[in-house]
């Protein structure tokens, strides 16, 4: 298929990518969003894996994460955004227009590129995890909690996501044990309080999961826990393991060209969203490990679209 050149190509379909699309579309730049399928996490981003979003402005009663994303997608589409439901396999930033290839083998050429690829859930990287992925090991409580009715599950992590997953899983599971490597949670006060108040949620402090036990037929049967103080290991029986141990920015395809910080996040020229390659901008969790909110990602997406519009006006007029 012959490649077309677009004014603005946006990779990623979370709040950053879709807000960028709305702004670029309203500027008549006819943006193309490569929304992804699974690379770097689900299309629509991490919001599609949550339940109620209670802190996005304008929704006093909260809104479901999936509904919020669907609304953003339709809003961008209304002004002329087009979508490609495919994963990106290659990005060539050596000259403009930039060249992007996707899993279907199609080439897209871009006068400006907005990277809004987000971050994917971090994995434990321990024996048994890969073998039992989708057979009791999960990073999506809202997707897979259903399969653990009256069963016991472990949630690994100590942040807001871990508290949300633990609290959500009590709708199904008979017991939820949060395993955290420290004695203090990173989660916000309101999320901690909800988990502490829930009778079904228990905590194991100063512990890490070093192996997931079970076989393909029965799924997960337990985990091996290591005490971070004494190094003692114990087996802990459980039917499921839900991971909420942070995220890794999705920069695989550009990390050798663009500048990243020590944690791998893309560096932009704050307060703008310009990366080290002129015409390439970054927005959302791929370049922000400080705030990591839907509303801050949306804000950065807006900035990236305006930056791209000004870049095009200055360079391609």
């Amino acid at each position, binding site marked *: 298929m012959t490649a077309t050149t677009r004014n603005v190509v946006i990779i990623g379909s979370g709040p950053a990518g879709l807000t960028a699309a709305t702004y670029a579309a309203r500027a008549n730049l006819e943006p193309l969003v490569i929304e992804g399928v*699974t690379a770097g996490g689900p299309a*629509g981003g991490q919001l599609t894996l949550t339940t109620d979003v209670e802190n996005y402005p304008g929704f006093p009663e909260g809104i479901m994460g999936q509904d919020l994303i669907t609304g953003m997608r339709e809003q961008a589409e209304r002004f002329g955004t087009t979508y490609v*439901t495919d994963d990106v396999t290659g990005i060539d930033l050596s000259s403009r227009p930039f060249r992007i290839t996707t*899993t279907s083998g199609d080439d897209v050429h871009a006068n400006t590129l907005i990277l809004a690829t987000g971050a994917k859930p971090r994995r434990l990287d321990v024996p048994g995890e890969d073998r039992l*992925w*989708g057979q009791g090991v999960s990073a999506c409580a*809202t*997707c897979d909690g259903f*399969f653990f009715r009256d069963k016991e599950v472990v949630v690994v992590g100590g942040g807001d996501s871990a508290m949300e997953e633990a609290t959500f899983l009590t709708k199904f599971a008979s017991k939820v044990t949060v395993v955290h490597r420290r004695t203090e949670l990173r989660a916000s006060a309101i999320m901690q309080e909800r988990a502490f108040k829930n009778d079904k949620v228990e905590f194991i402090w100063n512990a890490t999961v070093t192996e997931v036990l079970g076989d393909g037929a029965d799924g997960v049967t337990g985990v091996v826990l290591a005490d971070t103080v004494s190094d003692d290991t114990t087996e802990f029986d459980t039917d499921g393991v839900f991971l909420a141990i942070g995220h890794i920015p999705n920069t695989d395809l550009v990390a050798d060209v663009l500048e990243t910080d020590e944690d791998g996040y893309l560096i932009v020229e704050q307060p703008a969203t310009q990366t080290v390659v002129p015409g390439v901008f970054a927005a959302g969790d791929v370049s922000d490990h400080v705030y990591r909110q839907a509303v801050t990602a949306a804000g950065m997406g807006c900035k990236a679209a305006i930056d791209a519009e000004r870049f095009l006006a200055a360079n391609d007029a």
Partner: protein
Amino acid sequence: MGATAITDDQFQAEVLDADQPVLIDFWAEWCGPCKKVGPIVDELAEEVDGLKVVKMDIDKHPAAARDHGVMSIPTLLVFKGGQNVARIVGAKPKAALLSEISPHLD
């Protein structure tokens, strides 16, 4: 017309006893990633010759999912001659689904 929705009662006849390979998509309304893979599965139903494509809402019809060890959705299973020959866990791009499915087509 896309993937045909089937029930637990139809599973035996529509999937296990089918005389051609069957792709079944286990999904639910509340699963975000399922909403992304659903339209791709519909496209496969239209485009892949010799493949029967069905889907099952596990909220309403949990038995077949349970019997086949589905513990995460979306999960796609391929059945051939009543045997489960492929398992795809999680949403994947169309090209990736095709490459996992096509070895099982005649």
